[in-house]
Structure formats: structure tokens, C-alpha cells
């Protein structure tokens, strides 16, 4: 364990420093976003023909592709992030308190990227308000896409409220050490704050966390997002109840991977060895292994259901999935990571933060690949598999590839900006680690001995 005591100054360091590296990172993120924005502008000018997409059926293309794959991937990262943070509050997993806010911010970033993808993917994004919101009262009864937009909006509101409420405590206490140039923002954030509200806010946050934990499997990434695909009977690569648990496991894998990478970056940049401790990385890695195991289990269920005496269409799609080199590659990477995670629990010396970082990177790559493939596979082997031009061909265009960099840049920018505005580690966490926290919460999870 670290010998240093965490202080307020530690968590204020990102706000009160400005380094060259920060500017370089800011520049790269901005550039990535700008490149994609330019690509999107070209797409708006020319039409979606500039993408690699096309009509499935006689047309020999794929209706949806990387945009939708990346969309559900980002939603997964987002949903997983808020589940992670909610678990910290609800289940008393105080050990992860220092990264809870990073997870919440990941949610905001992931949802922003996902929302952006919805616009990018549409043929007429200009009609989003008139056509979608204008008919909402009718379409919400039928359209999974509308349910989707509904829960994403609901979760954005939920997460932002959650984040906003917990920030009031920190900002009001640390106000003197925060830069004056953001004064108006802090004023709005702490509007009407009194110390009496602390307890109420804690209760509110608890209830928000409870809502998140309950709704995640029922409605969020275990429900509405997979239903976008799983409810359609004509595409056997998508159908089935297993998609709910599958999507949820992917969400948690991706979110833990994402939070690990972000935590690593902050720890490195601001010497937070004593705040985001090795122990946190060990714990995250273990959880990553657990959800990876679940994911592989669900994959096995899905594929085996098709290849062993499946109905024609189901068998064809399952066999094609299994035979796809990218699928094999993604599963190999994910499985190898799982093996490593298990090995390092048996032999702790195999653990290192760099390896945890690598494992997270691999998992994120694996889940993104799986997501994009999943979307495209549906169009490749539909029930009505008669067309000579089906399976069609699809390879993402440069603009679609650039969207990945662009949205990653967008999320990075969000973190870079937020870290200059508010503490990304909760004051509560610091107080808790110092042992001067008023609460009697005991860590329910035994700490892993190094």
C-alpha cells in the first residue's frame, strides 16, 4: 500500500496545472475529431454513398455497418460505466471510490459518442426533431429504435444528475482552491447549496444508483439495445434471448476496460499512485475476467444452438459466424486475456499495471470487432437467403474508420476539459482513504493481497 496520505491538493492538481503534454494530447484529440467532422461534412454533402454501406438483398450490400456497431459499443461502454459507479455506491465497494467519478464521466462521454453516431448514421439528420419527436407518442409503442433513444436519453439525464449532485459537495468545499475564471459555472453548480443537503443528496444518489442497477439488465444494455436486433425474426444471426445477457456482459467488459485505461492515464499524469492504487487495478482486472468469462459462455451458447442441428437459416448464420477469421481472431484475443487474468490471480507476480492496460486494450478491441461483425452478420445470412447477391460485401470507408478516431477524440476532449473544471476524483474518496470520513461504511469486498 502507498505510504502517502491523499490530500485535497492531489485531486486539485489536474485543475491547477497546465503542461505541454496536456496541450499535445488536446491537439491530437481535436485533430482526430476535426478529421472526422470533415469526413462527415463530405458525407452530408454527397450522401451516405461515400460510406461502404449498401442495400442487403438484391443489392449485395450491408444496410448497417461500422456506424451502428460503434454506436452500440459506445453505448455499452457508457452503460457499463454507470453500472460500475452505481455498484460502488450501492454495494459499498468503497475500494473503487476513487474511480467512481471517472466511470460516471465515461458514461457521459460514451453516451455523447453514441448520440453523435445516431446523427452520423442517418440519411436526414436534419429531421431528427420534427420526425422523431413529433411522432414520439405513436412510435414509442412499437419501434425499438425509439425505445433506444428513450433509454439513452433517460440514462444521460440520470448520469448527469448523478454526477451533478455529487459534484456539489466537492465544489462547495474546494471552491477556494478552484480557478476564478470558471466562477459562473461553479456558481450554477452549487446553486442553493447548504451543508444540510449532504445527507439528502447521499440518499438521492443511492436511489439513483439503485435505479441504474435494476434497470441495467431489464432495460438498458441487457434489454432495449439488444432488442434492436434480437426481436427481428428475419435475421437469425441476431435473434434470441441470449442477446440480452450477451450485450450486458460486453457492456461491462468494455466499460471496465475503458475505465482501466482512463484511470491509468490519470494516475500516470498526476502521480496518483496513492489514490488510484495498484489494488484498484488488480480488482478491475479480476472483474474484467469475470465478465469476460460470462461473455464467452454466452457466445458458446449462441453458436452451439445454431451449429448443432439448427434450423437451416440459424445453422447457416452460426456456421458463418464461427468460420469468420475476424470472429475467430476476436474470440482468441478475448480468451487469451481471460487465461492471463486467471493465471495472475493464481500467481500474483504475473500482474503489472502495464499488463492490465494491455488486457483492457485487447478487450476493447475484441468487443468493438465483435460488435461491428455482429451488425454486419445479420445481413449476410437472413432467413430469406435466396438472393445471389446475399451475402453482400461491406468494408468500412475511410470516413467510417475516421469516426472511431473522431469519437475517441470527442471522449478524450471531454475528459481533458472536465479535468480542468472539476475534480475527477471525489473528495469523499480522499476523506474515506484518510479515514476521516463520517460514514461507517465498511468495505464489503476483501482486499486482494499483493
Amino acid at each position, binding site marked *: 500500500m502507498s505510504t502517502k496520505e491523499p490530500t485535497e491538493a492531489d485531486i486539485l492538481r489536474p485543475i491547477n496545472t497546465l503542461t505541454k503534454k496536456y496541450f499535445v494530447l488536446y491537439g491530437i484529440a481535436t485533430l482526430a475529431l476535426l478529421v472526422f467532422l470533415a469526413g462527415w461534412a463530405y458525407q452530408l454533402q454527397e450522401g451516405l454513398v461515400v460510406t461502404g454501406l449498401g*442495400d442487403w438483398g438484391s443489392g449485395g450490400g450491408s*444496410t448497417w455497418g461500422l456506424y451502428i456497431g460503434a454506436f452500440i459499443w459506445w453505448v455499452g461502454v457508457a452503460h457499463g460505466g454507470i453500472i460500475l459507479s452505481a455498484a460502488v455506491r450501492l454495494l459499498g465497494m468503497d475500494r473503487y471510490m476513487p474511480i467512481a467519478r471517472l466511470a460516471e464521466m465515461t458514461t457521459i462521454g460514451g453516451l455523447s459518442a453514441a448520440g453523435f453516431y445516431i446523427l452520423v448514421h442517418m440519411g436526414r439528420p436534419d429531421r431528427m426533431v420534427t420526425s422523431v419527436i*413529433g411522432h414520439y407518442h405513436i412510435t414509442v409503442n412499437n419501434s425499438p429504435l425509439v425505445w433506444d433513444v428513450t433509454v439513452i436519453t433517460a440514462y444521460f439525464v440520470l448520469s448527469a444528475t448523478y454526477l451533478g449532485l455529487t459534484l456539489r459537495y466537492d465544489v462547495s468545499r474546494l471552491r477556494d482552491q478552484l480557478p476564478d475564471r470558471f466562477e459562473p459555472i461553479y456558481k450554477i453548480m452549487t446553486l442553493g447549496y447548504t451543508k444540510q443537503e449532504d445527507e439528502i443528496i447521499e440518499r438521492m444518489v443511492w436511489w439513483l444508483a439503485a435505479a441504474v442497477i435494476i434497470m441495467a439488465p431489464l432495460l438498458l444494455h441487457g434489454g432495449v439495445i439488444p432488442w434492436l436486433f434480437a426481436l427481428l425474426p428475419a435475421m437469425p444471426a441476431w435473434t434470441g434471448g441470449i442477446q440480452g445477457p450477451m450485450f450486458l456482459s460486453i457492456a461491462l467488459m468494455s466499460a471496465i476496460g475503458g475505465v482501466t485505461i482512463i484511470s491509468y492515464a490519470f494516475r500516470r499524469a498526476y502521480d496518483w499512485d496513492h489514490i488510484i492504487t495498484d489494488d484498484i487495478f488488480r480488482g478491475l482486472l479480476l472483474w474484467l475476467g469475470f465478465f469476460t468469462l460470462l461473455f464467452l459462455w454466452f457466445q458458446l451458447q449462441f453458436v452451439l444452438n445454431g451449429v448443432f442441428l439448427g434450423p437451416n437459416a440459424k445453422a447457416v448464420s452460426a456456421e458463418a459466424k464461427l468460420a469468420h477469421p475476424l470472429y475467430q481472431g476476436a474470440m482468441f484475443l478475448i480468451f487469451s486475456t481471460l487465461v492471463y487474468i486467471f493465471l495472475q490471480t493464481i500467481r500474483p507476480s504475473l500482474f503489472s499495471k502495464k499488463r492490465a492496460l494491455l488486457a483492457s486494450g485487447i478487450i476493447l478491441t475484441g468487443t468493438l470487432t465483435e460488435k*461491428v461483425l455482429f451488425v454486419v452478420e445479420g*445481413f449476410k445470412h437472413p432467413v430469406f437467403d*435466396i438472393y445471389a447477391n446475399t451475402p453482400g460485401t461491406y468494408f468500412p*470507408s475511410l470516413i467510417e474508420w475516421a469516426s472511431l478516431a473522431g469519437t475517441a477524440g470527442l471522449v478524450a476532449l471531454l475528459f481533458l476539459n472536465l479535468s480542468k473544471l472539476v475534480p475527477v476524483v471525489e473528495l469523499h474518496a480522499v476523506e474515506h482513504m484518510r479515514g476521516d470520513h463520517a460514514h461507517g461504511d465498511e468495505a464489503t469486498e476483501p482486499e486482494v493481497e499483493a
Partner: protein
Amino acid sequence: MSTDDESFHPLGNEWEGELESMLDDTEYDSQLGMDMARDAMRVTEGELSEAEFHEKYHDDVMEEFGEDERPTKEAYEKAQEETKGTVSRMLDKFDGDGEQTRREAMKKMGVGAAAVGVGAWGTVDDGPEASVAEGGHGGGTETHEHPDTQWGMTIDLERCDGCLTCMTACQQENDLDQGVNWMYVMAWEDRNHSSPDGGQGLVDSGAYTDFNMGSDFNMLVRPCQHCTDAPCEKVCPTTARHTRDKDGIVLTDYDVCIGCRYCQVACPYGVNYFQWEDPSVEYEDIDGLENPEDPDEITHAEYEHGERWVDSRAPRGVMSKCTFCPSMQDGKQGDDMVGTTACESACPPNAIQFGDVNDEKSDSYQHREHPVKSRAVAHLSGDHISSNRYVPGPETVNETLSESDDIESAIAALDAANESRTFDEEVLSMMKAIDIVSERLEPGDNKNTTMIQNERTILESLDAIEGYVDLESEDALDTLNLDDGSEESARFQLQQYVGNPSSFNLLDHIGTNPNVTYLGAEPGSDAYQVEGPTKYEDAGLLDRRQEKLDNETVGHIDGVSL
């Protein structure tokens, strides 16, 4: 159902109380409204027939409101007509817009009674979904009441010769881009059905034998199925994809669609084509036909409330598919075109029969319900290139035949009456067989009754022939191979000529309730497309649209695919 309280309504006493107070606010009798509502629920539960319900309250309703336009009227009148004849139904024709009177009646029944009484009908008539969709307005979705007319098709796959004329006709009619094949025709094989080598053109491939069948290929003609339970419509996040109330066709509002392509994803048949780039035909150049200056004339279809842009090629960024030519159904291309589509009109062997699938006189209904007779009629009346036989008109018969003719001499004389075409025993046998099995329906003023009209023409000729020759005698029936002249033998004889196709709906198990019915062999689940009699490029069509789209893809690498 609530069993523990006295309430008749599934939502219980509280709800019922609310309705009652709503009724109290109207100027009409609440007790009558509640009694009717209670019995309306019994109708939905099947305890009471619609006609009984109507009769029970008819006098009270007439006294209270001065008229009785409840939705059960039809059932009641139908029951009445069985004893009284059809006078009331004929009078109904002068009633004008039924929709209007119904709405007025609802107003008079009071909000509460309407909600309970008519709402109950919503559930029994249309299923729960329909009542959910009710209330669409402001360019929103249409309601799902059962339309009086439901346009649909019966497509005879064994008459299709794979000439692709329907595809080109559709492309021209709608100014579609290359590769946007709203109508798509393909040849297929599966483990039980093989086919000759394709792509040789009709003559070489041995198409058109005699009476029967377009070609040796197994064909599938795939327009949009205009499903009653359209998955594309269900998933649409905007209501752009909708079913038109008045005639049940499924359309896309080009002014509302956001281009998310979820309809294309959800459609099991793959009938949707997205407008990935600017269409090749400018809007101004869309042929406005009667008013070429104004394309709106044919691109905008008629609705209860104004017009919507749903026809012809889509603008950039929105979805398109086969429309069943609403500009024709709305009469904008002339009365002759009502009840036809561009593909149907263009099909040389009349394999496509468009019409109101609920109207027993329509071509699609006739062809679906009486495929054998309809095939024979289509064959004898079409300008089908294979059919060298002909049916002489009554005038020709009267000019040619005399009282002294017997069956042999009559056939010989009629054969001689046309130099280029043949009249023989087989033609006469088919005519007589059609006569035996025919219900002799009158076309009336129904639209799209070509089949019945053609049948009538054939029967008029037959009647003329029978004026000279007795075709009912044993000898005559023997000569015509009609055995004892029974319906069974007539049907058997027709089947010898035109076959007896089975019928099917495409992907019936998915539950879309399509309004296209096929005659002929159904592709098995292992079926795959093969090269057909005519090559797409020979007909000026592009099959694989991706070839064209790939040209515009930024950073496209040939041959690389996920």
C-alpha cells in the same frame, strides 16, 4: 378479466366509474350508454353477436339520437337482408362517406360511450395494436382500421417467363436509379427443383410450350408484399413508413423519413432500397403525365387529410420500395389505370394479377381462389405470344356457323375463319369447361375485373356457338373430353391443360400477413438464385447495386470485405 367485482370492463370499477361520469357530462342518456357498453364487452367476448347487439338497442338509439350508425349496423343489416333481400344494401350506396357518418354518430353517442362501445370494436376487429396506433394526426401514422379495399397481387410463377419486362416497366414508371429494383424477378433452384442453363433468352431456353407455363425455370417475382402486419412499419421511428387507410398499401412518406434504414433491416423480404446519393432523375424531370409541368401530380398520393409525397423515386437520404403505384390507384393517371400497376400492365403473359384481395370480383381474388379457371381464361384471352389459338367473337361465330353444323364441322369452320390462328377441340373443350365451373359473376362497376370480363367474353362466344351446336349431349361431351359434364370432370379437364398450382405466401411463418399470394412452387429454405432466362444487363438493368455504390465509397478497396 375482473371476476371479483361487478365491473364489465377489464380495467375494473374505477375506470367504469370514470366513463360513467364522462357520459353524465353529455346531453345524452348515460344509462343507455353504460348498458350498451356492457353488452359491447359481451360482443368482444363472443357472448353476443353483432347483429343481436345492434337489434337490442336499435329502437333506443333511434329514439335518443335520431339515427343509428353504430359499427354493428352492417352485421345487423346483413342479418336483415337474409330475409328482406338487398334493397337496404342498394340504398346504402347513396349514403356517401361512411367515415363521416360514423364520426358524427360517435360524437352523438358521447365521448364515454364512444370510448367503451366503439373502443371495444377496436379490439375485436383489429387486434390490440390497432387501437394503440389510433390517434395518429398531424402527418402521423394512419389508423389501422380494416380498409374497405386492400390492394394486393396474385402472381402466377408458372406463367412467369422471366422476361424482366415488369422490372423495366417499374423502373421507367418510377424513374428509379440503376439497381433500385423495387420489382425483382429471379430464377431459383433448391434440392427439389432444378432448371436449365440460364441467360440464353426466351427462345433458346425453350420457353412457352403450348397452353401452359412460361418457362422451365422456377421463378420468383418479388415486389413489396404490402404486408398487413408490416414489420417495416412497426419498427419505423417516425411513422414515415405507414399503411394507407383507404386501400391498405404500405408507403414511405419521403418528407418524414429520417433515413435510419431500420425498415430495411426489419423487412424479411429485402424489398427496400435506400437513396444513398442524389437520384439520377431530377424531381422536375419526373414525368407528370397529364400535367408534365407539375411532378407533384403523380408523386403525391391522396389521403383523408391532404396529400403526402410517397410515390416515384425517393429523394436523397430516405428509403424507398415498391408502392403499388398509388398515382394509378388514386385515378391520377386516368380511370383506366385504377386497379392496375405498371408491372401488371407490362407483364406479357399476365402472370401478375393486381386487385383488391378482399373483393371476390377482382383479378387477384379470382386468380387466387380459382387458379385453374383463371389460368385458362388468361390463356384464352391474352395476347400471349405462345398462344396461337383463339376464341372467335360472337359475331364471327354467327357469321361462320349455321343450324346444320355439327360439332366437328363447327370446329373446322371456326378454325378456317381465322387464317393465322387455330381453333380446335381443345379450345372448345376449355371454353365449355370454363362454362361448367364458372359462377358467372357480373363485373358490375367494380374496378379491376379483367379476369371476369374476359371470362364473360369467352362465355358469350360459347353461348353463340351453343346457339348452333348442342354441346350438352353425351356425344359432344365425349368429343370435348368432359366425361359426364360435371364440375369435377370440367375442372379435371382444365387441369390437364393448365395444371393445378398450389398457392403460398412468402415466409408465411414470420407472421407478416403479406398481401401478395403466389401460385406455383414455393422456394425451399435452401433455395438459391440462379441465372434466369433473361440476363439483367440484357434488359438494361443493374442487378448488384453495390457495384455502382462502391464507386463513390471513400477509400474503397476492391475485393476486401468483412
